[in-house]
C-alpha cells in the first residue's frame, strides 16, 4: 500500500469485487432455477439476485462512481426492489399454492393447509385419475 495506491483505487477494487459477487449470485440463482424440483423452491433460488444481489451491485456501482447523484438513484433502486420483491413473490406463491403446483411430497410441513382446513377450505381434487398433487401441469399449460 506504500506504492502510491490511493483510496480511490481501493474503492474501485472493492466496487468491482461487489459487482463480481452480485454476478455470482445471479449465476447461483440461475443454477437453482434450472435444478430445483418445483416452483416454490425455484422461487427460493430466484430471490437471491433480486434483493441481496441487487444491493451488492448497487453498492459496487456507487463505490466505483462515487457521486451523490448516482447514490440517490441507487438507493431508490434498492428501496423499490426491497419493497416490491416481497409483493410479487407473495402473489406468485399464492397462485402456485392455489393452483396446486406445490410438490407436497417434498414438504416437511404445510402450515397453510392446516389453517385453510380450520377455515373450512380444502384444495380441490385433482381431476379424474390422480390422487397425488399434479406436477405435470398439463391442465395449466
Amino acid at each position: 500500500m506504500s506504492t502510491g495506491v490511493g483510496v480511490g483505487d481501493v474503492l474501485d477494487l472493492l466496487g468491482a469485487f461487489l459487482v463480481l459477487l452480485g454476478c455470482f449470485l445471479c449465476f447461483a440463482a440461475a443454477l437453482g432455477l434450472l435444478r430445483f424440483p418445483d416452483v416454490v423452491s425455484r422461487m427460493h433460488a430466484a430471490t437471491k439476485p433480486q434483493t441481496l444481489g441487487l444491493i451488492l451491485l448497487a453498492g459496487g456501482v456507487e463505490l466505483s462512481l462515487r457521486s451523490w447523484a448516482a447514490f440517490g438513484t441507487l438507493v431508490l433502486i434498492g428501496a423499490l426492489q426491497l419493497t416490491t420483491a416481497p409483493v410479487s413473490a407473495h402473489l406468485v406463491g399464492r397462485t402456485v399454492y392455489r393452483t396446486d403446483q406445490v410438490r407436497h411430497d417434498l414438504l416437511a410441513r404445510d402450515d397453510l393447509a392446516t389453517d385453510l382446513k380450520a377455515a373450512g377450505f380444502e384444495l380441490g381434487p385433482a381431476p379424474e385419475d390422480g390422487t397425488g398433487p399434479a406436477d405435470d401441469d398439463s391442465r395449466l399449460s
Partner: protein
Amino acid sequence: MNPVHTAVLVMVGLGALLLVAAATLTIARMARGPSSLDRVVAADVLVAVVIATLAAEAIVNDHATTLPVMLVLSLLGFAGAVSIARFVAERDLAVRWRDSDRPDQGQQ
C-alpha cells in the same frame, strides 16, 4: 496500463462470464416451463441478470447514464410478475378451489 484498472477489468470480466451463463440457464428454464409461473420466476431472474449487466458496464466505462434504466427495469420485473400471477389465478382459481369433505391430499 494501471494495474488497479486491470484488476477491475478482470473481476468484471469474470462477472460477465457468470452473467452469460446465468442468462443461458434462465432462458433454458423459461423455455422448458413447465408452467407459466415457472416462466414468470425465470423472467424475474432474467431481469435481475440484465440489471447486473448494466451495473457491470457502468463500472467498466465509469458512467452513470444507465442508472435510470436499471431503475425502470427493477419496476418492470415487479409489474410483470404481479400481472401474470393474477392472470393465472383468474383462470384457474374458481375451478380448483372449493369446499369439500375430501381427505386432505397434502398429507404425506
